[in-house]
């Protein structure tokens, strides 16, 4: 089958969507290689199709068997990014997986968002511990006048009227402990969730 301009345009459109999807979580070089391979598949399928009465029908059949570009991209994310995150637990791989998972549905979005919040709060505690020696008079904890603890952090004057701001170096080990604990807990939850999400997606992307 020799493709017309319209057929070529349809293939370029498919590959464009695929490349855009892949580039959101793969390096440009890996994405380009994947797109080149899928293009090779399409060209081979077109060549094997021989002479057909209706190019459009034949081409749509080829692309349908290949699967929608988003689905192919999802399979790549599953095999590459999420496998790396679930098996190695590398921080950046886990973050990339969460970012990608968040784009796949509402439930996944909120789950990934919750985990991002967990990481952020843990990191915030670590930042507080780091800032204490640098700004000793601005990092501490708020208490009510009758001695009830409210919260800890960086003091912005005037924000918490009616509370007493205490500066104590005890905040460093406490913030480090809580921050590190939260990061570990969130990371462990993130890995478990990515593992579960990957298995569920593998099931839905399995050959039928």
């Amino acid at each position, binding site marked *: 089958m020799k493709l017309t301009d319209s057929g070529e345009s349809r293939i370029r459109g498919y590959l464009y969507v695929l490349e855009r999807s892949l580039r959101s979580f793969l390096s440009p070089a890996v994405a380009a290689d994947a797109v080149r391979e899928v293009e090779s598949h399409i*060209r081979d399928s077109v060549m094997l199709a021989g002479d057909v009465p209706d190019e459009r029908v034949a081409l749509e059949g080829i692309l349908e068997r290949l699967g929608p570009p988003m689905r192919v991209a999802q399979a790549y994310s599953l095999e590459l990014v999420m496998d790396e995150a679930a098996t190695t637990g590398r921080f950046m791989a886990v973050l990339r997986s969460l970012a990608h998972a968040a784009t796949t549905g509402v439930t996944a979005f909120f789950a990934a968002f919750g985990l991002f919040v967990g990481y952020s709060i843990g990191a915030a505690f670590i930042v507080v511990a780091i800032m204490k020696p640098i700004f000793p008079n601005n990092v501490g904890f708020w208490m009510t006048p009758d001695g009830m603890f409210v919260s800890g952090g960086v003091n912005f004057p005037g924000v918490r009227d009616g509370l007493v701001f205490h500066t104590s170096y005890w905040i460093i080990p406490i913030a480090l402990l809580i921050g590190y604990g939260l990061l570990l807990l969130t990371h462990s939850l993130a890995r478990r969730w990515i593992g579960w999400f990957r298995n569920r997606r593998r099931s839905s992307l399995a*050959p039928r």
Partner: protein
Amino acid sequence: MMLENWLEQLRRGTLELAVLLSVAGGPRYGLEIIRHLEEFTDLVLTEGTIYPLLSRLARDGFLTSEWVADEAPHPRKYYRLSPAGRGRLNNMCREFDAFTTKIERLMKAAGKEV
């Protein structure tokens, strides 16, 4: 519905073995692997999902890949088993064989014909 899910799990679990077997006899490119699987199994693949699997197997060191530009009007990416891949394939075949033998024995013991 339950049987369908179970079948999907079975297919999913054996797809890696099937792909490694497809390139055991020599290098093959993507569409060739898919056609080979279709010829010998009833795994009707969503064709696009085979490439990420090939990519992962190559990344894990079980396959090596090479672009060949001069045998068709367009370049093709050929995959072949690496020594590590051959070792993995041998182990998988042995384990799969042992597994199916045990299930067959279990089915015979239950009076089910295999």
